[in-house]
């Protein structure tokens, strides 16, 4: 993270090594085989079925914030093993090596269409985006930073839930992050949430459900208990879209489902709308 991944990542996308597996991607949903270049250009949304594939935190930042505007904070926070939980230390080490970062929650300052923001992005590839002490601490520090600096906060969520390896410490991150949201709320700092695939359990039951505006990517899994749990309990009664963005929209829990390519202008518009300084706004183009 701390070593210019943005540029490196971009270079990778622009000049893929020309082996078959690099040239082609397969849609995880409809299994359509797509030119990797087209897949990347389409922001990892399947051109055939519209499936929004998961992004790493770096990819998300790249397509969301202004070029080179992101400065990470607290990137060196790392987990301890307070419970001496079986295999946790080893899993952490493996995750560090696999992802090149110390935690799945990447936070920092950035700009979107020139508007300064505090932004956090969850990376599901780091231990399933599970929220442990480090994610919680980074979110709270981001929110406290935003409050001090009067910056709006944007969080991209993705999580399988609390990190059970940290036991009650991880449960308490729900209270801790939500208390930080309460302070943002009191200070009237805009707080925007983008639910991405998948956002569940303890994260959905805390800061992810507390945005002034809650957006969700199309087709994302969004639910409290795992869908498997639900299925076992209730069988065929479940609606087809159970625990998706679409289900949550229908049930009044989110404001809008947004196609990935519309996300940046949508966020920019909301930032301008809520921005404390803004008194007059120019009409945006019709892309919103």
């Amino acid at each position: 993270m701390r070593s210019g991944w943005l540029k490196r990542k971009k270079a990778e996308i622009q000049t893929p090594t020309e082996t078959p597996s690099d040239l082609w991607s397969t849609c995880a949903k409809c299994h359509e085989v797509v030119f990797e270049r087209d897949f990347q250009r389409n922001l990892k949304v399947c051109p055939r079925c519209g499936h929004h594939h998961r992004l790493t935190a770096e990819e998300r930042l790249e397509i969301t914030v202004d070029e080179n505007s992101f400065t990470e904070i607290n990137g060196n926070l790392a987990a301890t093993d307070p419970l001496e939980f079986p295999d946790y230390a080893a899993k952490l080490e493996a995750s560090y090596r696999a992802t090149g970062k110390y935690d799945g929650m990447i936070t920092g300052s950035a700009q979107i269409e020139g508007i300064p923001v505090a932004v956090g992005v969850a990376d599901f590839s780091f231990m399933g985006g599970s929220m442990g002490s480090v994610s919680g601490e980074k979110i709270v520090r981001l929110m406290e930073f935003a409050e001090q600096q009067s910056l709006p906060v944007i969080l991209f969520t993705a999580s399988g839930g609390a990190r059970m390896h940290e036991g009650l410490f991880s449960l308490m991150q729900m209270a801790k992050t939500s208390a930080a949201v309460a302070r943002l709320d009191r200070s009237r700092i805009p707080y925007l949430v983008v639910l991405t695939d998948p956002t569940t359990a303890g994260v959905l039951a805390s800061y992810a459900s507390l945005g002034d505006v809650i957006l969700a990517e199309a087709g994302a899994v969004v639910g409290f208990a795992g869908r498997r749990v639900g299925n076992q309990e209730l069988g065929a009664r479940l609606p087809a879209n159970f625990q998706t963005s679409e289900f949550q929209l229908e049930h009044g829990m989110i404001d809008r489902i947004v196609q990935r390519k519309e996300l940046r202008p949508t966020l920019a518009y909301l930032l301008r709308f809520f921005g404390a300084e803004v008194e007059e706004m120019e009409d945006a183009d019709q892309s919103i």
Partner: protein
Amino acid sequence: MQINPFDFERPIAELDQILVELSRPEKRREAEEQGIDLEAEIQRVEQEKQRLMRHLFAHLSPWEKTQMARYPQRPYSLDYIRQVFDDFMEMSGDRLFGNDEAVVGGPALLEKKPVMVIGQQKGRDLKERQRRNFGSAYPEGFRKALRLMKMAEKFNRPIITLVDTPAAEAGLGAEERGISEAIARNLREMPMLAVPIVTAVIGEGGSGGALGIAVGDRVLMFEHATYSVIPPEGCAAILWRDRNRAAEAAGALKLTAQHAHCFGLVDEVLIEPLGGAHRDPMAASATLKKALTHHLDQLREIPVPELLEQRYQKFRQMGRWTERTETVEPE
């Protein structure tokens, strides 16, 4: 009350059996005939039983604690409410959708002082269990709790919450009506409530469902209660794909009151009567009453802005992390 012993209680049950034997009239006759000092014998067995119990219940494993916390004859919220408070008047409804009986709450008096008491309530018999959804609250339960907490705040009455739930309800209806939103909203609102809040985990502290009413200035926990991010069975299923390794998972999760207290996540462990709260609910209630009164008396002295700052900082500092200096590069 008939107590069904756990496995780990069998040695106690055996001594109980011996005591019963020793008390039989024939035994007494027999002893007199043989010149045996029966009273001394009984006293010896009683002492042995006390010693054994003290030892046993001081060294319960996390899984044994889990069983204690879930024990069907353990006092529930309404049992404590009846013993600890006077003039409890139950209030119903979330003013939005329904009245969730997995949560009870209303005004009451604690040592003649008005408080708002809210508890998660399991059922005693099958019918009541179903009616109260086994203590698993729907969104309406959390919203009722919040409504009552706001009512308390409005009239400057302290709040007491009693936690006892396996988990929040997670089925279709709960999802449709926003169980995540309901818990999250409580977690955002409770830190800002301008009255003292004391929480006691009296039985099962089941993850988000427990936390949803547990953002207190003081969090107390009974000696044999548990508080966990996930039920041990679920943890075992995820880690080892084997729900039968729940005992092992309970150990790994360190879900006991003693651990939570060591970790600084719980402020005080309330000592239960020997053998568990269900063996002497009156004594357990007295302990709870004393602790609630003590903490409320302290909290009432703190000016509200300071109270809120302390509450924020209390949860703010929860977690364990470290700072790494070296850079990690992906492989």
